[in-house]
Every structure is written in structure tokens, then in C-alpha cells.
């Protein structure tokens, strides 16, 4: 065997490797519960809620005249729900791995802590995209009709907006309360927010006070933005403000609790 050398390089990109990303994806595939809630659940919910509304027009334009169905609205919402769930798990897994001591083990390697979060974020975003594509494909086969621009813009908007707002929400909670049960808690919170924010049925069907609350949740803004390509009426300023403010709050919270956490160790 050769002698031990002392002159060694530092790895590039803060230790980012495709091996790590691949293993993160493998871990997600091996987790049946996570797979169900991010990919299977949105598809299932589209069938239960959306399928029967294929012929119900969303706007004043009848479907025969090229109008969009309520089923399409449900499709975007459900796809978004999958992307939200996947994004939230990123933060939850950071919290769990900290509690298990894995993060400490990783600090014996060149891996930069921010690169670690980046790898998990990318893996979470990839699964979010899988959830959206799966829901859209099934809906397309079931008979939802949209223009090419509507398919692509609503899909991309749902993916990126859910990814940005809910990855940061998950990370903030993950750094705030370390523990292995953060995943269950945040999943519950996301389900509740999805209901209140009009993801499972439109806010207009709810009592007035719930509508007011619903408009303030972090799901409402991004949901309205992602669905706006369907109606062709654009989105209201309130939705945009909602999305921007919540994203800012979660980013600031993540930075604050991340710093508090690294100081403590």
C-alpha cells in the first residue's frame, strides 16, 4: 500500500455530488408513505373530486365552446398539493437527520451544510415535478382539455411556486423544532392549510369568515397564481402579495433559525 499523502485538494462545489443526489432519490422511492402522499394521493383525489366535473364549466364559456372545466381547476390544485407535500418533506428530513445525529456525521466530511440543504431541495423538487406530471398525465387521459400554453404555464407555476414557498416553510419548521416527528406535524399543517386556502374546493363555497382566513394562508396566493392561466382573467394583486409576503417570511425564518442552530452546535 502507498504511504499516506498530506497534499490533497478540497472538493469542488462544496461537496455536491450526483451520488448523494441519487441516494436521496433512492431513499424517497423506498419510502412508501412519502410516495403515496406526494404522488398517488393527488392522482387519487383528482379522480374522486375532479373526474365528475369534467363537463362542468369553470367560467361563463361553455366547454363545447372551448371553455375550461372545473376538473382542470381540481387537477392544478391536486398537482400543487403533491408538490407542496414533497417540498415540505425537504425541511422535515433536515430536522429528522439533525435529531438522529446524521448531520453531525456529515460534518466529518467536506460537505458544506448549505450544499446539503441544496441536495435535499433538488431531490424534493424532482419529486414535486413527478407529482405534477403524474396528475397532469392522468387528467389528460381522463379527458381534461387545455391549450399547450395552459398546460405548461400552470404546471410550471404550480411546481415552482409550491417548491419555493413550501421548501422554505419546511426548512423553517425543521430548524425551529428539531425532531424525528416534524414530518408528521408539518404534513398535518399542510393538509389544513390546503383546505383553508381553497385547494380542495373553491373559497367561494365557504362561509365568509373562513374565506377571509383562507385568503391569508400561504396556500391561497400560490394556488390562485398557478390556476390563473385557466380562466384567462389574470390574477388579482392580493394573490401575488400573499405569495411574496409568505415567501419572504419563510426565507427570513429559515435564515434566522438556521443561524440559531449553527450557533448552538
Amino acid at each position, binding site marked *: *500500500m502507498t*504511504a*499516506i*499523502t*498530506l*497534499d*490533497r*485538494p*478540497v*472538493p*469542488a462545489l462544496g*461537496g455536491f*455530488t450526483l*451520488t*448523494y443526489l441519487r*441516494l436521496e432519490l*433512492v*431513499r424517497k422511492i*423506498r*419510502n412508501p408513505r412519502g410516495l403515496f402522499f406526494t404522488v398517488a394521493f393527488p392522482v387519487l383525489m383528482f379522480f374522486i373530486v375532479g373526474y365528475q366535473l369534467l363537463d362542468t364549466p369553470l367560467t361563463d364559456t361553455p366547454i363545447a365552446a372551448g371553455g375550461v372545466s372545473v376538473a382542470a381547476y381540481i387537477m392544478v390544485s391536486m398537482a400543487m398539493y403533491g408538490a407542496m407535500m414533497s417540498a415540505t418533506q425537504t425541511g422535515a428530513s433536515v430536522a429528522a*437527520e439533525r435529531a*438522529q*445525529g*446524521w*448531520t*453531525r*456525521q*456529515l*460534518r*466529518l*466530511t*467536506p*460537505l458544506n451544510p448549505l450544499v446539503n440543504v441544496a441536495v435535499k431541495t433538488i431531490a424534493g423538487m424532482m419529486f414535486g415535478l413527478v407529482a405534477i406530471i403524474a396528475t397532469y398525465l392522468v387528467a389528460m387521459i381522463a379527458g381534461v382539455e387545455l391549450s399547450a400554453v395552459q398546460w405548461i404555464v400552470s404546471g410550471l407555476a404550480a411546481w415552482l411556486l409550491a417548491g419555493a414557498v413550501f421548501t422554505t416553510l419546511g426548512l423553517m419548521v425543521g430548524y425551529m423544532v428539531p425532531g424525528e416527528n416534524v414530518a408528521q406535524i408539518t404534513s398535518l399543517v399542510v393538509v389544513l392549510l390546503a383546505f383553508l386556502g381553497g385547494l380542495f374546493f373553491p373559497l367561494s363555497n365557504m362561509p365568509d369568515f373562513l374565506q377571509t382566513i383562507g385568503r391569508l394562508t400561504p396556500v391561497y396566493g400560490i394556488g390562485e397564481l398557478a390556476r390563473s392561466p385557466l380562466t384567462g382573467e389574470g390574477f388579482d394583486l392580493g394573490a401575488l402579495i400573499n405569495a411574496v409576503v409568505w415567501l419572504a417570511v419563510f426565507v427570513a425564518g429559515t435564515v434566522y433559525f438556521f443561524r440559531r442552530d449553527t450557533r448552538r*452546535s
Partner: protein
Amino acid sequence: MTSSTTRPPAAIDARGVVKSFGSVHAVRGVDLTVQPGEIVAFLGPNGAGKTTTIDMILGLTNADAGSIEVFGHTPRGAVARGLISAVLQTGGLLKDITVRETVELTASLFAERRPVDEALERAGILELANRRVGLCSGGEQQRLRFAMALVSDPALLILDEPTTGMDVEARRSFWSAIRADAARGRTVMFATHYLEEADEYADRIVLMSRGSIVADGTTAEIKNLVSGRVVQLTLPNADLTALSAVPGVDSVETAGDRVTVHTRDSDGLARHLLTTTEARDLEITAQNLESVFLALTTEPAASIDAPTHLAASVDAPLNGAAR
């Protein structure tokens, strides 16, 4: 470092290192130099500051004052280059991936590394490679941590109570692997509470107590620190005051007719006993590491005169040994 005129940098060069947690002074000014290729045992009771010192050498914790260099780099710089790695008791593992995947992942994070199977084989877990980590026993997980530490081919390996939970045979094969490694120039520093491990496998022992290094030298030097030997004899109605007055005697204890004397001059004591008293069945033994350990690390108030004398003699032989 590349210049041929300068000596290679020390594996560890710590100077005046201080660390407090609130009002707890965990480490109170540690100076420690470890040369490449040394096998150093790091001994001390719980709360002595061993783990905090190890954490600072690894860059997991920052020192409040003082400096630490590892092969001429900052601790984090040495970690980033794969020059230092460790088997820590606190390090967690991912339960949902396999043993081989864990080592693959670790290897991928370093710029230079050994083959994954080689690390698995040297840690003795090649046959477990496809097992999920969550299904491995505590001892198997400890060997997995060892494989993870080996895969970057570190020049300095730090082990925090590495053989806890291993049986005698596993412990023996573990240490022979460590020995073979050190022969290639790998520096090893291990914390342990098995005194016989320190005695048997280390070239050098560093003893820590209450945040300071209280002894540092070869095993033989450390044993000599607690002045000399233990003399045991049978003497009915022994005059303890007279025995205590014999030059060199540190302490006298009796159990029935059997008397145990700690002395720095066993020859003088034996001469005195055999010529002026009725003492018989005389036995003279060297101090074992355990009694040294106890003498050097117990609270001063709890022991007799010995520690005061020790505190004065500790520094002299040590500084020489540390260089």
C-alpha cells in the same frame, strides 16, 4: 509544507486551547502536540474535557481562545481535505440505506478516496454490504462508522471509545487493523475508558482531568509518575506512625495484619522493614495504570498527600515526552 528544508507539520498542534459552556469551564488551557505516526491514548474520567477537546480538533466546536492546527491547516481545512476523520459515538446513520450505500455516499464527498469495498473489508463488514443500516447491530454500526472514517484515507484518525460494545475477539482484530494502519504512517488518537487498551496499544498516554492535561508520556513514564511502588507486608500491631515516617513513604493502609505502603523508595523501606521490624511475606509491585489513573484524576481533597507531591513532579518528565 512542500519545502524540503522544513519539517512536516505536526498531526495536531494545539496551544492554549480554552472552551467554556456558560459557567462550565470544559477545557482550561490545553497544549498538545502529536507527531505523525504516533498512537495516542486519551484518558480521563467523564467530564474531563476529552470529548470537547476532540470536537475542537475536528472543528465541530470552536475554541474560545488558543489555536489548533491539524497538519498545518485549520481543523475545518483538514476535514475538507480528508486529512482527519473520526469515529464518534454521537454520529448518527441513515437507517433506510444500505451499508455499502452509506460508505459510497461518504466516499463521494471527498476529492480523493479509497475504493469502497476496501474500506468495508478493512472494517470487517464487506459481507454486510447490502444490509440496511437499520438492521445492523450496535457493533456493526460502529464498524460502519469505522469504514466511513477509513474511506477518505485520513492521515489522522480520531476514535472516541471505538471498541465499546465489541467482544474480546472483535476488539483484538480491531486493534491489529489500527496497528497495521499506523505502520503506514497513519496517526491515531483514541479516547478510551479501558486502561488496558491504552496500556497495550498506545505509544503515548495523555491524561486529562477537569479540563487540563495532568499527565502526558509513555505508559512507563506515566506509571512512574505515581512515585514508585507498592510494598505489602504482614506485620501484627504495626506502628503506622513509625512507618509513615520512613523516608519516601506516601501512604500506609492496613487490613488486619496485612499492611500496604505506597513509597517512592521501596529499597529503603524494605531494608528498614527487614532489619528493624518483624515484617514478613514482603511483596514489592509496580503501580498499575489504574492506580495512577485514580491518583491523577481524583479530587485533591479526597486523597491523602500523594497528589500534592505529584502535581509538582508531573510537569518535568512530561514536557520531554511531548516533544
